């Protein structure tokens, strides 16, 4: 049977992709950020997951306002990115696992989650930057897992509640663990933490709130579900709503998890950048 071995959350700031391309790992601005990742590389090298379920939010590449799915799951054999209009580097197509995608979709719809399935899905920096961060070299990396993108709407309100996000993750985890093949699965939740790009409040970052979320999400994620969406915008900023993806990831891991690695740094671009690696214990 399939096993969910752990989850990793990370910010997915586009500038990180450029910093990787330029190898700015020891640059004074970037070092406190990149120094968080070697423990994750070591963990991934040890456990070698076969599959990565990459939960991110599309930022206007894969979806437009004409049709905006609240939750969408990729069901393609491979996933392409594009330059998004401002020159993000193209990466090679990422191999998918359509059979497992459809297993997840079947399981979650049976579980009463209404999923938009996507046989074609252009993936943006929310998906690609974490792939680059965790599996340097991508296709040249022998440990690159097959990827399944899951996108949540944070572009347009109403966005899903934090409770729904956590429940989504629980249902996703149930579907994953019911897959009959012996595959090891890691779940990513990308985005956040606090940041705001738009309006007179641009540049808003809330360290205390971010650290509280990184603490609670480990053993008391239910407490975070009490935060309303408007409170989340107020505390974490307009784009800090990306905490939703962290909650989706957390829900998929089950109750008992252990922190393997953790990092937080202000600022990367306009963002309080957070990273958390949780290993499943049950």
């Amino acid at each position: 049977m399939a096993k969910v071995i752990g989850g990793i959350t990370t910010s997915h700031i586009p500038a990180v992709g450029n910093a990787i391309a330029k190898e700015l790992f020891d640059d004074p601005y970037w070092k406190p950020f990149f120094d968080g990742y070697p423990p994750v590389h070591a963990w991934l090298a040890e456990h070698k997951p076969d599959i990565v379920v990459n939960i991110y939010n599309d930022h206007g590449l894969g979806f437009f306002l004409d049709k905006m799915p609240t939750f969408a799951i990729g069901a393609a054999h491979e996933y392409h990115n594009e330059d998004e209009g401002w020159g993000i580097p193209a990466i090679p197509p990422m191999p998918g696992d359509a059979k497992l995608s459809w297993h997840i979709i079947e399981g979650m719809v049976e579980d009463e989650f209404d999923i938009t399935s996507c046989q074609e899905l252009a993936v943006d920096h929310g998906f690609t930057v974490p792939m680059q961060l965790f599996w340097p070299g991508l296709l040249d990396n022998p440990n690159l897992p097959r990827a399944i993108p899951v996108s949540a709407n944070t572009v347009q309100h109403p966005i899903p509640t934090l409770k729904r996000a956590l429940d989504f993750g629980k249902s996703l985890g149930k579907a994953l663990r019911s897959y009959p093949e012996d595959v090891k699965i890691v779940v990513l939740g990308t985005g956040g933490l606090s940041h705001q790009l738009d309006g007179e409040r641009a540049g808003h970052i809330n360290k205390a709130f971010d650290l509280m979320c990184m603490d609670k999400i480990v053993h008391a994620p239910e407490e975070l579900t009490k935060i309303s969406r408007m409170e989340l915008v107020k505390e974490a900023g307009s784009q800090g709503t990306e905490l939703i993806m962290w909650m989706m990831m957390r829900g998929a891991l089950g109750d008992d998890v252990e922190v393997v690695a953790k990092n937080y740094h202000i600022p990367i671009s306009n963002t309080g950048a957070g990273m958390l690696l949780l290993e499943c214990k049950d």
Partner: protein
Amino acid sequence: MSHASFDQHLDIPGTTIFDGEMAMKGYGLNKMCYSFNGAQGRDAFLADPEGYMAKYGLTDAQKDAVRNKDVLGMIREGGNIYYLAKLAGIFKLSVQDIGGQQTGMTTDEFKQKLLDQNKQ
């Protein structure tokens, strides 16, 4: 007319909640910006900005905001920052450039503000 509680948005200073109302107001502007995902759309805009804005049915207020590269104006007229970022890309403006513009700072002052956030 009374609204259900779920229609109520907090008033957060300096922050626009991009909801259905704003999504309808900004539809043409955002649709134009979405087309900038492709090089063809970017080239067509640069070759004839007025014609391209007319093609997507931008309002006069939206056109003025685009002509003036006025990000707050675009947001007021229904622009969503994720789509507007693609227009900013055409103008070679970074998120720090537009952060400075929206907060009345130079780009360097805005970058310093971000660095200072680490002192929280």
